[in-house]
């Protein structure tokens, strides 16, 4: 349902993509997509993972060359496949993952690459003046001489935006800009975007978070399976209608039913961990989870959630304090022993930690129990493992060619299903799920949440670490917040709301925190 909106025919059209088609082999990543962007407009592009959002933007920015279609900027055709040309035409992109040099100052990061290489001295003053002008004009407050390493995530994003503006961007593409921000930081970003639009900039805002799109955009285009499936003005859209357009069917997410909790299954008591190159420090953590309970851990990435998970995964031991499972103190960092005690472990980075991509599906399904399932502890029981894999593939709807398929060929959602199958076939009594829905599409998200709630129903205690507050509020019984290695809470969900959790995530202690506890 492509509708030609009046905007496309307006004269102040800043950017126009016509009939873009990009194929990767037999996969059509972008199928005949057209869009236009007016000056002073925020266009949101909504779509699930794999819908073709990023491909489209990479074509616009010159990273990819489309097979068909053309791009016009301010009425002039844009030569394909040349990022330099896109930059010159005023297209700036802020990637989801920042591309900043931590050991340089803000000013250096912004001017990097804009100055000729063969130049004896730097024209610092002019750059400084320009930067000050830009920050003033768009309300992007930043100290030019601070090292980037010392900035918060929100500030780093501001530097990225300034970097694009410094290069004269008039069209700014933001790829999932709020993924790393607290709700408050996201609000700040939105007001900055408003100011930029008022100054005549055009913005393309890529996201799969509906409430943000409703808050910030003027118009929404929805991509699904590489096709443009809808275009609506934001004022006419609702969360439900957008969700349905994005997924292609009505979306229902499972809800947690109230349950009485049982015995304590896991406890962390006064746990301290010193910082290492890979793990952030933990300070005096106290946390427990009972049968039939999900305890959510909120927090901005990098505040110690990975360290917490590493302890509960059996990968490391606390430097002091106790990690207790089923009322026994754990004295050894041994993942296999934990699996033997019926602990389910869903790792944060499912592709890098959860599976060995080069090995087969059945091999990954027995990954945590190779020694115990092997005949005489030496020979892997291949026929049994394949048989079991066949059942699990069916039971968990893992889309693959069969037990012998190479795991790296599976999609992210199916890899997560594989990991769930491996864990839940062991009937875990305690589950540590670290970011289990990050980057999954709606179908897979519902599946993961259903499985977690089923486990809760059948008596497991679950720790759920997530950056997605919607998810936490939806399934958790209690929520705790990690900030700077410290844990606030957990508090019962009924006493919290997104606002309060957001404040705790950014380290501002709640005024009524004492009453809460």
């Amino acid at each position, binding site marked *: 349902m492509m509708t030609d909106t009046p905007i496309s025919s307006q004269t102040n059209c800043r950017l126009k993509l016509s009939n873009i088609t990009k194929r*990767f*082999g*037999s*996969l059509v990543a972008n199928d005949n997509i057209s869009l236009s962007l007016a000056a002073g407009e925020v266009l949101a592009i909504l779509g699930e993972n794999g819908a073709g959002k990023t491909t489209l933007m990479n074509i616009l920015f010159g990273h990819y*060359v489309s097979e068909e279609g053309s791009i016009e900027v301010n009425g002039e055709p844009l030569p394909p496949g040349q990022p330099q040309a896109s930059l010159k035409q005023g297209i700036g992109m802020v990637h989801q993952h920042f591309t900043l040099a931590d050991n340089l100052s803000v000013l250096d990061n912004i001017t990097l690459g804009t100055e000729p290489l063969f130049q004896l001295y730097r024209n610092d003053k002019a750059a400084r003046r320009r930067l000050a002008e830009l920050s003033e004009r768009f309300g992007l407050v930043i100290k030019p001489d601070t090292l980037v390493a010392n900035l918060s995530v929100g500030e780093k994003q501001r530097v990225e935006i300034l970097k694009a503006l410094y290069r004269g961007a008039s069209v700014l593409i933001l790829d999932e800009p709020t993924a790393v921000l607290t709700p408050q930081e996201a609000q700040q970003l939105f007001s900055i975007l408003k100011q930029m639009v008022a100054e005549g900039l055009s913005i393309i805002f890529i996201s799969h978070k509906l409430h943000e799109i409703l808050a910030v955009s003027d118009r929404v285009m929805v991509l699904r399976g590489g096709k443009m499936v809808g275009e609506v003005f934001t004022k006419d859209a609702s969360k439900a209608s957008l969700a349905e357009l994005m997924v292609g069917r009505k979306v229902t997410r499972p809800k947690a039913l109230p349950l009485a909790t049982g015995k304590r299954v896991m406890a962390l008591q006064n746990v301290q961990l010193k910082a290492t190159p890979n793990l952030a420090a933990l300070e005096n953590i106290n946390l427990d989870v009972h049968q039939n309970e999900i305890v959510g851990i909120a927090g901005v990435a990098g505040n110690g959630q990975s360290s917490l998970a590493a302890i509960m*995964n*059996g*990968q490391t031991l606390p430097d002091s304090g106790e990690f207790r499972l089923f009322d026994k103190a754990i004295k050894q960092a*041994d*993942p*296999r*022993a*934990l*699996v033997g005690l019926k602990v389910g*472990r869903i*790792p944060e980075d499912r592709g*890098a*930690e*959860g*599976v*060995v*991509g*080069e*090995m087969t599906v059945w*091999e990954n399904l027995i*990954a*945590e129990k*190779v*020694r115990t399932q*092997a005949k005489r*502890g*030496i*020979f*892997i029981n*291949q026929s049994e493992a394949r048989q079991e894999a066949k059942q699990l593939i069916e039971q968990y709807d893992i889309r693959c060619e069969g037990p012998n398929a190479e795991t790296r060929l599976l999609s992210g959602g199916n890899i997560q299903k594989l990991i769930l199958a491996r864990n839940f076939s062991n009937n875990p009594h305690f589950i540590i799920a670290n970011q289990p829905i990050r980057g999954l599409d709606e179908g897979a998200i519902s599946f993961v949440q259903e499985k977690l709630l089923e486990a809760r129903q059948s008596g497991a205690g679950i720790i759920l670490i997530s950056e997605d507050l919607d998810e936490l509020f939806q399934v958790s019984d209690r929520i705790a917040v990690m900030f700077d290695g410290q844990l606030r809470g957990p508090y019962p969900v009924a006493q919290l709301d997104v606002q309060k959790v957001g404040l705790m995530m950014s380290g501002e202690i709640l005024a009524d925190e004492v009453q809460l506890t």
Partner: protein
Amino acid sequence: MRLELRENVPAFSRLSPILALLSAFLLCSLLIIWAGESPLNAYWALIKGAVGSSFAITESLTRATPLIFTGLAAAVAFRAKFWNIGAEGQLYCGAMMATWIGTGMINLPPLLMIPTLFIAGAVAGGLMLLLPVLLKTHLKVDEVVTTLLLNFVVLLFVSLLLEGPWKDPMSMGWPQAEPIIDAGVLPTIVAKSRLHIGFIIAVCLAVAIWLILKYTVWGYEIRAVGHNPKAAAFFGIPVNSSVFLVAMMSGGLAGMGGVSEVAGLKGYLTLDISPGFGYTGIAVAMLAQLRPLAVIPAAIFLASVYVGADAMSRAVNIPNYIADVLVSVSLLAILVSNMLTRYRIIWR
């Protein structure tokens, strides 16, 4: 010009090694033409010299024997991303061990003597890797550097022994050790040839390594650690001990290669029992794409090229260095063809 990942394996991929070798021969024929000979004549002489008679075949297989050992050593290690470049040194360690206990220190019937020599050689080769592997797992010292440099240490040590305490008084001044006693000498398989049972032992080891990697828990763990150490650690696989096990296997295989050369081919230790078998083993392993069973044909192929090139240099007026060029170009061609089966080139 760009590369794009192929979604599925193209049909020609099964033939790709053969196509790669053909193109390598084609490329090298330019060199032969430059040297003023007809490539057809030269290659005919090479093929005849490599497989043209039963003697030629046994010679090729004899030359392939140490390459199977060192090729396996490299394949096993590289699978676990343990970059053992020291097979040459480990081979000499095995050879020294065979000489030390095989020249009269112990005297057993052949049925016991030969296995004893091989086990001792494997232990010596493994010990040679003890320092590099511990430095790697405990202090993250790069094993490429340590294993490579230890080669020179070992070679100089062998030289010291052969010029000094181990020098055979009957050798008329040549730097060589006393011969292995009769019970330790490996019997030949084919009469009137130099092909000895070391070849059979090497083939059996290749099968054994294949079985271990494919069917056992250790193999599973080694593969997991090699492909993705982070995930392996998450599964609870003891990554460091897996790497240690791999190192011992790798060093042991190279050490047995040394035993096989001393007790099977030469009969005594010299400084030139290996003209770089340890390094050629790396080429063998790469050619075999690190698959243990494929190491056997890969080693036989490279050995045939070397043996054939010797014959060729005698028949036509081309230096036998062409063998080194041919082997290198073959290896490059195989690597390129592997890449082409995974990616396609977009000319634009």
